[in-house]
């Protein structure tokens, strides 16, 4: 049994349950750092990290940047627009140029599935996948797991239903792998045109109706509905989507128990989630964002060679 994460974090599919638990446990001591007045420890002092964002992102990019800065790493942000990428440079050339500058880690967000793996196979630096196409978004999956574990005090045996556009969702894939590896039961619910045909082969339960999903689940992970799916002909209208699959207070009230609500953001209020649900008492959507920083600190720490048992010490001020 290896506890080490290896060189890269490309997805949750290749990780074992042990490795996922290691990341979650390592995140615990890092949560507290963000609550301090001076939110900084010297753990990654001298490490150079590039945040390479080929797709627009606010939440994930800022979250990574805070995680890096709170660990005292030197960071550079590269966005696709305004970089040599917009001049036609290939991904492999971008990677080699960054490598030549002797960086330690790359955090990559890219529109093509497999882009993080592509980079990881070609450079020595650690690579963290911050979302690749419709493949995986492992740190989002991990922060969802941490948030669920905070609430339920366990992951084993809980029932989580992912609602929405699973077909195009990297968050859904990372959640399915992470939850099943940690012993949770996973449901998915959405219009059949937005669910992959072969999804049941991944060991999930498929619900056609959101009412059935609500009846079954302890928690709902509500996915953002990409507005362009309507133009793609996958659904007839946003209005109908809201009426058939939207998570509303009325629907939740009919459930026999309280259901925890998570959402990877950004939300389309009134489409996949109604405002009174998003802002309601069982929504932990902002806790997810807070946990995101701790999870990313844990991943950065572990990939840079940090020992999990030293995370407490690192928090108190030691280096890696």
């Amino acid at each position: 049994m290896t506890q080490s994460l290896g060189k890269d974090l490309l997805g949750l599919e290749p990780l074992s349950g042990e490795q996922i638990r290691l990341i979650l446990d390592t995140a615990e001591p890092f949560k507290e750092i963000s609550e301090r007045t001076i939110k900084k420890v010297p753990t990654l002092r001298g490490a150079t990290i590039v945040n390479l964002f080929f797709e627009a992102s606010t939440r994930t990019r800022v979250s990574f940047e805070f995680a890096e800065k709170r660990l005292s790493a030197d960071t550079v942000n590269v966005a696709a627009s305004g970089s040599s990428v917009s001049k036609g440079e290939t991904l492999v050339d971008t990677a080699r140029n960054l490598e030549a500058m002797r960086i330690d880690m790359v955090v990559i967000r890219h529109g093509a599935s497999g882009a993080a793996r592509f980079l990881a196979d070609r450079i020595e630096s650690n690579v963290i996948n911050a979302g690749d196409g419709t493949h995986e978004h492992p740190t989002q999956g991990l922060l969802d797991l941490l948030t669920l574990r905070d609430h339920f005090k366990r992951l084993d045996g809980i029932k989580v239903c992912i609602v929405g556009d699973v077909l195009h969702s990297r968050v859904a894939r990372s959640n399915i792998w992470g939850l099943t590896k940690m012993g949770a039961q996973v449901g998915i619910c959405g219009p059949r045109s937005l669910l992959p045909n072969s999804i049941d082969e991944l060991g999930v339960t498929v619900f056609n109706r959101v009412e059935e999903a609500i009846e079954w689940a302890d928690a709902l992970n509500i996915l953002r509905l990409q507005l362009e799916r309507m133009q793609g002909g996958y659904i007839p209208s946003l209005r109908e989507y809201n009426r058939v699959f939207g998570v509303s207070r009325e629907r939740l009230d009919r459930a026999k128990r309280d259901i925890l609500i998570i959402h990877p953001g950004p939300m389309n209020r009134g489409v996949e989630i109604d405002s009174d649900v998003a802002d309601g008492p069982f929504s932990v959507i902002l806790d997810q964002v807070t946990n995101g920083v701790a999870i990313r600190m844990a991943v950065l720490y572990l990939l840079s060679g940090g020992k999990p048992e030293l995370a407490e010490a690192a928090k108190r001020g030691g280096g890696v």
Partner: protein
Amino acid sequence: MPRSILLRGGRVIDPSQSHDATADVLIVGDKIEAIGPRVGNDAAGRDGLETFDCTGLVVSPGFVDVHCHLREPGREEVETIATGARAAAAGGFTAVCAMPNTDPVTDNQAAVGFVLRQGTLADAARVYPIGAISVGQRGESLAEFGEMVSAGAVAVSDDGKPVVSAHLMRTALEYARTFGIPVADHCEEPTLAHGGAMNEGLVSTRLGLKGIPSEAEEIMAIRDILLARRTGGHIHLCHMSTRGSVELIRWGKDRHINVTAEVCPHHISLTEDAVDGYDTNAKMNPPLRTADDVAALQEAVRDGTIDLIATDHAPHHYDEKEREFAHAPNGIVGLETALAVNITWLVASDIIDLPTLIDRMSCAPARVFKLPGGSLNRGVSADVTVFDAGAKWIVDPKRFKSKGRNTPYAGQTLQGRTRVTIVGGRVAYRADA
């Protein structure tokens, strides 16, 4: 006295005359002179006789590839007709048909003449041009089949693209009948396949890649078969990849519809699992499918539902494949690995025997496309391949004669290797000792 070649003591397999026995083959000038157990002794002492000891080797009619992309004109940095023809000879092919999706498109008699002339200058495997079905392969109006056939085109195809309009396909089948040539179609329903990068299934779901369902191929295959029934034209279905397509072809043949079909070596050997890890050398169109599809295609090669094996040789520049999977181009090189892949996955695993393989790689393609070759009968042009059916070798793309290096078989140990390729009585390829 014309030069002569003696291929001595090989296992001579010529399905066209049901020959499978140890024998000598004597070539005089550009023709097959004789086959028989004592031909060598009788020929001994001829002036200028070049003798190849073929003991332990197979001597067969030269392989014919009805589907390859030689990239000239337009992409000479990727492949030229000369490098492609030499790669073909190295793979045991004595003739190849060049698809017309060049730049400019081979859609007129002058372009056909250019391909033919470059093929002659290459002086390796014979090169037969295939003309486009539609002008510019735009799928709008018919290209000039009559003039292209007069200039040397042996078939028409818009390969690389489907013929979207059923009306255009119907007309092409009818018009091609006039000239006795097949219409070779790339079966792909474009709205279903749109944006797809691999087979639709569990692997595409896991990798987050847009899938191409089997039905994208099968819908067009049955459309074409039905249009061949309507018109009496000869439809040739390119690179079939699914069990469903095999069943549709069988349905058509049972009804004596004029349909023929090909399969590529990669579709009878690899599955969608090869895409795992986002290996762009496992990206082709149609995509690698499932193990069940592979089994159905292997069986179809055995029982003849699939008439022949063609490479779909598609060289790409290294840089083009060295990128994100969804953005990488489709296709792999195939001319120099086809024989070994076919022997490894079909013959060594006892799906078919060597005579059947030689039929599918030589006799059948020559027959279906009405080309010379596919036989060692006395008096025919001496297009002959000598290969070692047992030789194991490790695929090293750097050693290819093709300019393309894009192969999913790199580093694999395969069985079966060309030793000598003779085109028109001239040695076009000889393996290093």
